[in-house]
């Protein structure tokens, strides 16, 4: 692999030369696969018994992306496959509980109702949450089905990266990660913004450590001194929800001092003058007061941005899943642009949005259908409550992972037919009329994309439970019942990929065989007959209307405002600055390395590691007389939850943190989303999961105990 010092990496971080044998011993009974969780692209070796059960999951020493190291998630994922809560056959809810169905019976029930819902209410009468739809086979089939039926689909974007997606499309014409994570080795500076990659992509974190050893400066900007911050060369602590102030001030500093790349700006951007004008009042002095960051720190950061090139920006959920994150994302990504840090080895932006483009030309125009109305994720609740949604297919767990759990439950109860295609019987299953058994990525073959901008092929490691079917199969069978041409619904994953890549330009040169034969997979874009490209924008061509980076957005259909500005988190959706006295703290949810969404709750090992908690600053706890382990009631204007306290010096006194993964089905706890409203960032549309006003009852908040 050109450009990487893989052997150096191996030597530096281990004693002696590690071989496969040191990690996993002789390789018989081991099956190779690629983890399907965080999109890090880690290679796995799975020990499988003769009976076809998983005995252990290990890192694959031959995979160049993780070189035999893994985070705890895939081990837990393998264990959860055999959880007693695994759904193994179709279930239909009736008055007495649940009745077991065959797939035939289930489809007999679903198909006519699917048809009727569309006939009576239009294409938009059906919605689908597809965040856990499965691997590439299921994603492809679902996309085909959606094109044929005008189905409104909702993936993880509304919860995870919608604001990032909208801002990056506005700036660059595409949301996908411009640079691979491996570019860190070639950067002189990496800025991690609201990004705790040491937890969220622990298996891939070594790339940043290796970059550091080579001399890259790693700066973490965050509200808490996270595990990532501790490993960085510099940690800049910022007040919650004020990152945009820092970004805008850095733009101001770079522009006022003419540290930007004038030639790059002239040739490749649009709207620079307007941006410069917009940030004129956002001085570093102003930002220092807003963010709580020392003025010198801001000025030095500006100087380093001006001189340490190429540089990478890697924004995380901390600036995306908040009520004012769009401005921060816009400011910082625009900053990279005016510095000329785009499309270069080590220069650009890394993101975990790893799409490779939409299907083009597979479905003939006359067969395509469109939804009459595309509801936003926020609007979906209302559409369910007032009967506009007649049928909801859910592959995911929105009752736990979408905000305002109470409202989501109410809304789902109003939908006449809710189908839950799931691995586990979870909180969402409890609201479903029909529950279908899904397959796991360990049980599927498919192409796996990665934050390194590569596609790797995986084979199934173990067979699924006999009646479990992937979404690919469900939609294939449903499409047959509904009379759609079967040629668009290949039943095998490899055939599906070959069809998909033929009609997806960016991956048209990536066959299953090529992926299998290339260690570490193949970079995309890779058009048929061309060499794979490691990153986007090397030719500085952008898919925007002007073909340039659009610092200013003139089309209100793309973004409702034309330039970034500062919005106080207390005056942004979900919060109300007038309630500051009653709700003096901020509540945020943050991920940990051993959980993935709500899935790893079903792993007995992971439950042993640690339980749910409310993390509180140690000094605050002392002042309020709260002890470690004590149960405390945390309340927002929308709900309350009782949690045991965990003390920490890593977070500021104003901030309380909890985890987003626990739920009633998994750990017998109301999800943290009981506390969050159905509110989104007004520009980017991301649901908020952080910086929500809250109080602890009985402590420093006033208000009566209800």
């Amino acid at each position, binding site marked *: 692999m050109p450009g990487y010092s893989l052997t150096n990496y191996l030597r530096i971080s281990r*004693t002696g030369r590690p071989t496969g044998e040191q990690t996993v011993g002789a390789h018989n009974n081991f099956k190779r696969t690629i983890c399907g969780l965080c999109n890090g692209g880690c290679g796995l070796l799975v020990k499988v018994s003769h009976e076809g059960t998983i005995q252990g999951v290990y890192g694959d020493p031959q995979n160049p992306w993780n070189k035999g190291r893994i985070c705890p998630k895939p081990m837990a994922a393998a264990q959860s496959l055999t959880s007693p809560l695994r759904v193994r056959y179709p279930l239909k809810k009736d008055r007495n509980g649940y009745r077991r169905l065959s797939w035939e019976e289930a489809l007999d029930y679903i198909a006519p109702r699917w048809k009727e819902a569309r006939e009576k209410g239009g294409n938009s009468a059906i919605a689908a949450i597809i965040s856990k739809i499965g691997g590439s086979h299921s994603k492809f089939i679902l996309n085909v089905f959606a094109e044929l039926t005008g189905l409104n689909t909702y993936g993880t974007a509304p919860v995870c990266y919608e604001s990032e997606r909208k801002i990056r499309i506005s700036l660059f014409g595409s949301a996908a990660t411009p640079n691979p994570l491996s570019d860190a080795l070639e950067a002189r500076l990496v800025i991690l913004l609201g990004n705790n990659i040491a937890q969220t992509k622990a298996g891939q974190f070594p790339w940043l450590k290796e970059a550091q050893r080579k001399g890259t400066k790693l700066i973490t900007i965050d509200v808490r001194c996270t595990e990532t911050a501790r490993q960085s060369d510099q940690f800049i602590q910022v007040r919650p929800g004020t990152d945009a102030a820092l970004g805008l001030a850095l733009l101001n500093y770079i522009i006022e001092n003419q540290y930007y790349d004038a030639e790059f700006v002239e040739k490749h951007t649009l709207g620079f003058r307007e941006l410069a004008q917009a940030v004129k009042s956002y001085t570093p002095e102003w930002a220092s007061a807003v963010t709580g960051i020392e003025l010198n720190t801001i000025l030095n950061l500006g100087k380093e941005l001006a001189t340490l090139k190429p540089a990478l920006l890697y924004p995380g959920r901390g600036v995306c899943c908040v009520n004012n994150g769009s401005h921060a994302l816009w400011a910082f990504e625009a900053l990279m642009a005016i510095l000329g840090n785009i499309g270069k080895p080590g220069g650009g932006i890394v993101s975990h949005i790893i799409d490779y483009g939409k299907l083009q030309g597979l479905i003939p125009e006359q067969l395509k259908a469109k939804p009459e109305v595309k509801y936003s994720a926020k609007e979906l609740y209302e559409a369910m409550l007032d009967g506009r949604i007649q049928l909801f297919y859910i592959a995911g767990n929105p009752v736990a992972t979408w905000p305002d759990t109470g409202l989501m439950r109410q809304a789902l109860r109003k939908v006449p037919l809710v189908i839950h295609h799931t691995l586990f019987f979870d909180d969402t299953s409890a609201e479903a009329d029909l529950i279908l058994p899904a397959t796991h990525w360990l049980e599927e073959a498919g192409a796996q994309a990665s934050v390194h901008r590569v596609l790797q092929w995986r084979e199934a490691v173990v067979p699924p439970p006999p009646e479990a079917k992937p979404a690919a199969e469900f939609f294939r069978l449903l499409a047959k019942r509904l009379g759609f041409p079967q040629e668009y619904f290949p039943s095998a994953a490899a055939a599906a990929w070959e069809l998909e890549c033929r009609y997806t330009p960016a991956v048209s040169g990536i066959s299953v065989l090529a992926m299998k034969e290339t260690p570490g997979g193949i970079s995309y874009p890779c058009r048929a007959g061309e060499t794979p490209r490691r990153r986007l924008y090397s030719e500085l061509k952008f898919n925007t209307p002007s073909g340039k980076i659009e610092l200013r957005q003139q089309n209100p259909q793309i973004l409702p405002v034309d330039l970034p500005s500062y919005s106080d988190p207390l005056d942004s959706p979900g919060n109300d600055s007038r309630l500051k006295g009653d709700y003096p703290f901020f509540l945020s949810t943050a991920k940990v390395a051993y959980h993935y969404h709500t899935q790893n709750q079903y792993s007995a090992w992971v439950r042993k590691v640690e339980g749910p908690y409310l993390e509180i600053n140690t000094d605050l706890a002392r002042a309020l007389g709260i002890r470690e382990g004590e149960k405390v009631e945390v309340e927002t204007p929308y709900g309350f939850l009782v949690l045991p306290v965990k003390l920490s010096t890593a977070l500021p006194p104003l901030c309380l943190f909890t985890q987003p993964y626990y739920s009633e089905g998994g750990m017998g706890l109301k999800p943290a989303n009981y506390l969050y409203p159905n509110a989104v960032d007004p520009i980017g549309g991301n649901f908020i999961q952080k910086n929500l006003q809250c109080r602890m009852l009985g402590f420093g908040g006033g208000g009566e105990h209800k």
Partner: protein
Amino acid sequence: MKMLIDTTLCIECQACVVACLQENNYSNLVPRIKMRIANPRNCHHCAEPACVIFCPHGALQKINGGAVIWQEPLCSGCKLCLTFCPHGSVNYDIQRGAPVKCLLCPERLAQGMEPACVAVCPTGARLFGKDEEILNLVEQRLHELKQKGQRVYCSPGGKAGDEVIFILLEAGK
């Protein structure tokens, strides 16, 4: 052979804890190690193990390779090892009435493999190797870290010392 646990490289991902649970799954569900930077708990396989000295039944023994192992048939579940371990690194499985601690993966070592926790560690915070290699590395790391102004120290080590060496940050900011 020695193990180095360098908490300055630890990102608290818990891969080691879960890998250990996976490795010992058929035995019990009680974690054998805890990995928090401020307070890591892992059997040190001490040079002079208190648990071995105080075990009335000889169920705990220090073997040639340096590991302190536990033999179930000899154990009465009396919990003296828990009580006397100076590192609080012996856990207890109530269901089986047995102590649970790191045994340095004897089956893996017998096959020439690294302990399960070392094999997974993404940052190389856990390393395993020959005595000399590890001791040299400890010296190197301590020097590197002190150069950077980090206030670090290592748990008692040396050729005749514990099999598990920790690099720890001094408490307080």
